[in-house]
């Protein structure tokens, strides 16, 4: 279980780092084994920052990230190497993850150098073939080629295979298919679905709502670093409660229904009109930090939480 508990991250920006940009605010969610959680947000919402913090590429400013109860912030040396055995990432541009002057088998030999020094050549080849097999690639057809000789989908699958060489339990997939063509992207997406069935937990970071809806079990909607709505995917997409979520879903271009055609009301109309948050927390939320404060993100149903859109910095409504 990968758990994020009230994670915060701020960047120093501006002249002499005088301004603080709070990229991620109080984000909490968890990913279980064999679960795909999609993290959806527009540009600048902090989704990549969260992925990088999980991969320890960025330091957490507040809150904690833990895997099976062990906080990852303090890991170093052998412990950190062991952590990377379990948690791996794949990123948006497959070609920028490869060194263009080496053939792609270099990607794998680096991993071998760090983690599989003691493995014999034959065992290594077997392991490599098994890993490539899971992503539907033929070792003989790809390993002796340079990155530019392969398609984006092939390189992206190679990178997933590299992430799976270790005993990976969690995969951070940051916009991994946005650069792929329509005819191949769905294959990579289906691959994630198959890996999930084998027990891999996946954080699927995307700005494309239809992809998130297709693959994920649970959905987290992020806006300006804050979670505005999260829960089981059918609930978030079928009955969006937060106005921002509704706006996002209404903006997605669909294939069989035009924007200007009336859409059926999400859920039952009455429930969509009334503010569930304020039924549960009728008093306006006091400033955060107060022990009595209602949570910004409140459960409105089984595995479905929404944050009040009006309770801003001041906590007013």
């Amino acid at each position, binding site marked *: 279980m990968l758990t994020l508990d009230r994670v915060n991250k701020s960047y120093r920006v501006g002249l002499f780092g005088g301004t603080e940009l709070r990229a991620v605010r109080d984000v909490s969610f968890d990913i279980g084994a064999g679960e795909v959680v999609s993290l959806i947000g527009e540009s600048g919402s902090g989704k990549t920052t969260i992925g990088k913090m999980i991969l320890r590429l960025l330091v957490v400013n507040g809150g904690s990230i833990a895997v099976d109860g062990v906080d990852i912030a303090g890991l170093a040396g052998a412990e950190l190497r062991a952590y990377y055995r379990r948690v791996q990432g794949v990123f948006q541009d497959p070609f920028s993850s490869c060194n263009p002057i080496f053939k792609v088998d270099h990607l794998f030999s680096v991993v071998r150098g760090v983690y599989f020094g003691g493995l014999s050549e034959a065992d290594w080849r077997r392991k490599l073939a098994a890993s490539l097999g899971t992503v539907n690639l033929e070792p003989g057809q790809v390993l002796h080629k340079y990155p530019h000789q392969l398609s984006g989908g092939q390189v992206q699958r190679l990178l997933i295979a590299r992430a799976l060489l270790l005993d990976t339990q969690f995969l951070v997939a940051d916009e991994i298919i946005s650069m792929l063509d329509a005819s191949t992207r769905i294959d990579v997406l289906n691959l994630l679905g198959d890996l999930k069935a084998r027990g891999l937990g996946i954080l699927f970071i995307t700005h494309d709502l*239809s992809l998130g809806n297709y693959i994920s079990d649970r959905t987290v909607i992020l806006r300006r670093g804050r979670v505005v709505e999260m829960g089981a995917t*059918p609930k978030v997409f079928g009955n969006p409660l937060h106005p921002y979520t509704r706006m996002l879903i209404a903006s997605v271009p669909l*294939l069989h229904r035009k924007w200007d055609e009336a859409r059926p009301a999400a859920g039952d109309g009455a429930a969509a009109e009334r503010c569930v948050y304020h039924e549960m927390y009728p008093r306006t939320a006091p400033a955060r930090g107060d022990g009595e404060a209602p949570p910004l993100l409140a459960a409105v149903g089984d595995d479905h939480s929404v944050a009040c859109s009006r309770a801003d910095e001041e906590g007013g409504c």
Partner: protein
Amino acid sequence: MSLQVTDLRVYYRTLAGDVKALDGVTFGVADGEIMGLAGESGCGKSTLGNSLVRIDGRMKYVAGRVVLDGVELPIADSDEMDHFRYHEISIIPQYAMSALNPTRKIGKMVAELVESRRTPFREVRDELARRLDLVGLTPDVLDRYPIELSGGMKQRMVMVISTLLNPSLLIADEITSALDVSSQKAVAQTLLEFRERKFVGSMIVVTHDVSILYQIADTLTVMYAGKLAEKAATDVIMERPRHPYTHLLISSLPEIGIRFAEKRLSGIPGAPPSLLNPPAGCRFRDRCPLAFAKCAEEPPWVEIEPGHSAACWKAS
């Protein structure tokens, strides 16, 4: 008919030989029509858009005619094309967000651009302010540098600039691809608004995102490996595509409501052929589930019903 393109061939010169990015393309765009042009990367869709505006040094005009409003465009001759560019035919380039000069204030840049087209800036200044207002930008953006604008604002700014002289044909190349969903919708609807107000005659909207085209385009053209695969009215393409590539492409798109656990979509196996030495016959043959012996011959581009053309032996 506003635009008529006949058997256009434009190749890229490379050390390894000519890349046949556009290999015999024939189509027409009616007055006021928004033609969506879709396809995978490397299929030649941007080359088609660019070659109607400017054939640069890397490209080589090989054959074909382009007629816009009854006048034949001298697309092979870049200097002659200068008379048409921006006035008659204009483009919103791919990565429009980096199309603005970062060292100039936007107003100054627009003034320089308009005057380079032999139009005094004061003639268009009022119209510019009106159009900025229409897309939700305040006139003070003209005193700002591009870096001060967000991505969606820059995209709308470039759209206003490209259409300022009311071109008869506008080419919009991947204008929504780098935007968030909410800005995507605003930008796409601005295109419709521009047509409504007659700022532009007809449009060719190039994108890999078929669902955006379904929202705004009147007709949809699908390209594959340097050739047109199919063209028809948007609804017809979506409901009864005749070319197997169109069919597979559309059915591989995930949509809200379709979930992996319930309905597994599938991609198209294989990859498009290299355009350096494209295979003879139908170029989709190797990936096509319906391919048969006759596909070794090149399928002709034929009209299978009024307004619906396709290049496939199985369709005709």
